[in-house]
C-alpha cells in the first residue's frame, strides 16, 4: 500500500495537509472541468455548461465576482478620494 505524503505549508494544522493530487482534483471539480464522479466534463456535450449553471459559486464565478468587487471598491475608493481632494 502506497502512503501518500501530504503537502501543506509549514505552519498549517495537520487537518489541512492534503496531497497535491487531491488539491488538483478539487481544483478540477470546483472549476467544473471534472464531475464529482471523476469524469471530465465535455465542452460540446454541455456538461460543463450544466455544471456551471448548477453550481452558482463555482471557481470561475467566484473569482469573477471577487475580482469585480475588488475592482469597484478600488475604483470607487480612488474616485471618492480624488473628489475629496478636489
Amino acid at each position, binding site marked *: 500500500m502506497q502512503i501518500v505524503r501530504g503537502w501543506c505549508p509549514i505552519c498549517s494544522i495537520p*487537518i489541512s495537509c492534503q496531497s497535491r493530487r487531491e488539491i488538483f482534483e478539487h481544483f478540477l471539480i470546483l472549476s467544473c472541468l471534472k464531475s464529482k464522479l471523476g469524469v471530465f466534463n465535455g465542452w460540446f456535450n454541455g456538461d460543463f455548461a450544466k455544471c456551471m449553471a448548477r453550481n452558482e459559486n463555482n471557481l470561475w464565478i467566484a473569482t469573477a465576482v471577487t475580482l469585480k*468587487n475588488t475592482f469597484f471598491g478600488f475604483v470607487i475608493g480612488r474616485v471618492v478620494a480624488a473628489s475629496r481632494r478636489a
Partner: protein
Amino acid sequence: MIARTLRPAQRHLPALHHRGEFDSRIALAPIIVLAFGIGDTSKIVTSWIVVVFLVFFNTFEGARSIDEGFINAARLLGASEWQITRTVVIPSTMAWVFASLSPAISFALIGVIVGEFIGAERGIGRLIIESEARAEASGMMVAVIVLMLVGVALSAMIWRLQAHLLRWQQHNMVEIGSMESRLTVLAMRGGEAMKARCCIVGGGPAGMMLGYLLGRAGVDVVVLEKHADFFRDFRGDTVHPSTLAGDGRARPARRIPASCRTSGCSRCDGMFGGDAGADRRSLAGSTSATASSPSCRSGTSSISCASSGKRYSPRSR
C-alpha cells in the same frame, strides 16, 4: 491639493492619518454587511472604506512634501500659479498617488474577502467558508491558491501601469541644486520673477559658452548652476586658444564682473545672478583675452581675470 494649502489641515490631518493606521477599519465589515445585505454592495463598500483613506492620505502627503525649490524655480521662470500646479504640483503628487496604487489594490482585495467571509452569496471568500464548513481542506487550499494568483496578477498589473505612467521620473529628472536654490531665493526676495527667454541648466563649458553666445545674440538667457565653486576637477576652467580660433565668435568676455576679480568664491555669484538683465550685446567681439578660474577649494580662493594681451597662468595645484 486644496488641503495642502490649508494650514489647519496640514496640522491635523497627519495626526488623523497616524491614528487611522491603528484603528481597524476592517472591523466595520460586519456592520456594513448588516447595513447593505449579503449582496455585492456590502463587499464594494467594505473595500471602499479600506481604500479611500489610504489613497487620500497618501495624496495629501504627496502634495505636502513637494520640494519648495521646484515651485520657486518655476516661479522664477515666470510660471503662473496654474502652470505651477500643472507642471510641478500634479506630477510631484502623482508619484505619491501611484505609490499607493499597489497597497490600495491589495487592501481592496482584503476588504472584499473579509466581506465574503462574513456573508456572501458568491466569491472566493465564500468558497473558503463553504469548504471550511464541510471540512474540505483541499477546497480551501484551492481557493487560497486562486486568491494568491489573483493578488499577484492584480499587483503585477498595477506595477506595469505605474511603471508606464511614471516613466518620466527615471529619465527626465533634473536636479535642482544649491546654487539654483540660492538664485531662486535671491530672485524671489524682491517679490519678482527673473524672466528669461532661454534657461540653460548647468554652467559647464558648454552651458556657459551657450549662454554667452545667446547673450551676445540679444537673447535673454539665464544659466543655472548648482555648484557654488569652480573646482577644476569637473569644470573646464580654461578656454584653450585653439578653441577660440574655431569660428571667431566664441570668445570670452573682456569685461568680467568685478566681483569675480575679488577673492572669495561666494562673491562670484555675480557671474550667474548679479548681471542678470544686462545687455550682453555690448560685450567685445574680438579679444585675445584668456580667462581662467583656478580651483576655489584650496583656501586662498580667487578668480583671476586677464584681458587685452595679458595672460594669467592658472595657479598650479
